[in-house]
């Protein structure tokens, strides 16, 4: 105690250098190596619309309740096959998540292929799943008297629909649903079928 660590330069400098080395070894290097992971066969970049939908997914913090990581565990197989490194080649920012207040969405495009279902669910989740705790996203929709040509009309179940009016999906909602529908795990060669 009476030695070097009473020199303020050493007190700051030695731990600083040790931590710098550890930050490179445990943070930057693994990041760099794993950033080089090539896409798995069949994993393709998103279209422009899907990418806009992903931006909405990020902005609204969907990943705080929905993971995109299927673990190699029995209880996760309901969500798809175990995720592999090549699944994430185009997934920046990464959206693996840390909590499942809702189900995993790695493969939701295959598990729930209905766009109609997704629109209704985003407008009011409890109209489809009564004990759902997902927030409703009415700001992705416009409520109008009449649908115009080209409008995507959402068939909200009675009791949840505004009476005498129609619910229209905005461009933002269409992009988000396009992104959700794009979440389809590519099949692995030689993998056992579930």
């Amino acid at each position, binding site marked *: 105690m009476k030695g070097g660590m009473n020199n303020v330069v050493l007190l700051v400098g030695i731990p*600083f250098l040790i931590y710098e080395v550890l930050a490179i070894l445990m943070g*930057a290097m693994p990041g760099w190596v794993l*950033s080089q992971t090539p896409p798995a066969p069949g994993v393709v970049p998103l279209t422009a619309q899907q990418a806009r939908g992903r931006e909405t997914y990020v902005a609204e913090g969907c990943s705080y309740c929905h993971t995109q990581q299927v673990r*190699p565990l029995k*209880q996760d197989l309901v969500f798809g096959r175990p995720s592999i490194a090549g699944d994430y080649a185009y997934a920046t920012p990464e959206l693996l998540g840390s909590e499942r207040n809702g189900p995993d969405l790695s493969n939701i495009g295959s598990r729930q292929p209905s766009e109609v279902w997704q629109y209704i669910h985003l407008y009011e989740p409890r109209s489809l799943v009564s004990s759902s705790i997902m927030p409703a996203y009415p700001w992705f929709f416009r409520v109008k008297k009449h649908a115009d040509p080209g409008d995507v009309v959402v068939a909200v179940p009675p009791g949840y629909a505004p009476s005498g009016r129609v619910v229209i999906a905005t461009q933002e909602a269409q992009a988000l649903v396009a992104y959700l529908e794009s979440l389809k795990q590519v099949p692995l060669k030689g993998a056992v079928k579930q």
Partner: protein
Amino acid sequence: MTVAQPTAPTVRGDAELFAAFTISATFWLLLATAVGVLLSFKFPYPDLATSPYLSFGRLRAIHTNGTFYGFASVALTGVGMYVTARSSGIALWGKSYAWAALWCYNIAAILGTITLDLGINNGDQEYREWVWWVTIFFVVAVVLSAIAIIGTIATRAERYIYISNWYIVGAYAFTTILAVTAAIPFYQHGLGQVAVQGFYMHNAVGMWFTFLALGAIYYALPKLLNRPIYSYALGVLGFWTNLVFYPIIGAHHFEFTPIPWWFQTLAIVFSVGMLVPVFAGTGNFVLTISGRWERVRRSVALPFIVVGIAYYFLGSAQGTVEALRSLQTIWHLTSYTVGHSHATMYGFITFIAWGCIYGLLPKATGKEPNPLATGLHFWLATIGVTIYVVALSIGGTIQGLNWAQGDPFIASVESAAPYWMARSIGGTMMFVSHLLFAYNVYLMTLARRNPNLDASGSVRA
């Protein structure tokens, strides 16, 4: 010993700085935990406050970043600067840097809160959701704080650098590196970003808040007990083992992902290794208190520090156990993790901040908190966080078991519901305790001094 007696005006400056940091931190505590209470009530009432600006996905990051960077960072920096100055035997060096730091912490927190509420964020990168031009203000604040603290140690009147200052200086050095490492984008694509995120999120807690809080305890505990720390050597052991083990364990947040299996295993091994600094720290603190429990009972501040030490031990030991693969299969991705993060960031970090503020701020300003409000603050916060952690530990375990036995997903939502409600009750008690704390902060800083206590006259009236 060549302790320079600081003149009254410079010490007054230290007190004003400490008071300003505490007031600022208290504002963010109230805001961020009001948001937390609202978030918790969205579990039982999902249609509550349906608006983009009050939606769960946006507010969650406002709650976590607000408590981390608006509240805890600022509260512990205020304490840390005061501790450094007192243990160096001089007034704080470079106060203009310290004031500038306070401004930068607040600019970062204000801009961060506004941008997150507008949906402008870095993606789900927990505790680094603020975009880079917001984070810059935070990094500048950390560097400015470091300048004031290192300058104070360099010009100290004491011969030795006290162990508290090892931890406090370390926190600023490490966090500067950490923030820069987390901000550089070129090694953060896809799974690479996952690896950096694991490193970042655990180090933001471990190399920043843990170091600041331990440094504060090493000063406040002996000071308030009026006896030296039990073992200086254990403090040194804790310092080096924290420094070397902590950076290796981040990958335990991403077990069972495609991150290399051996890398996850390494993180688990060192998570067990973390028991060394945790035992060293806790043992040292408990042995320092040992035999002086009567003094704890009569103190306003010490009970907070004792609860903080207890949650430091429990939360850290829990973290080690959670890292084991067999238990991760059940607990990971459930509400159990949220309970753990409140055991540590609240039970440990926040209680230590409060204990140090109650113990040291009245000495600085010459103004005392209200004893009844302090007692209510203590019990509401202690019982509240315990309800919170216990409820989510049970609820999270049930969620995990639901999944393991292959129930439909919604069954886990339904079975966790009563425990989420209990969490809201605990959380509301915690929030009410913060109102009492805010009242006490007012009494310790801005309020007129009680004329009966006005004896020394060396500090601002």
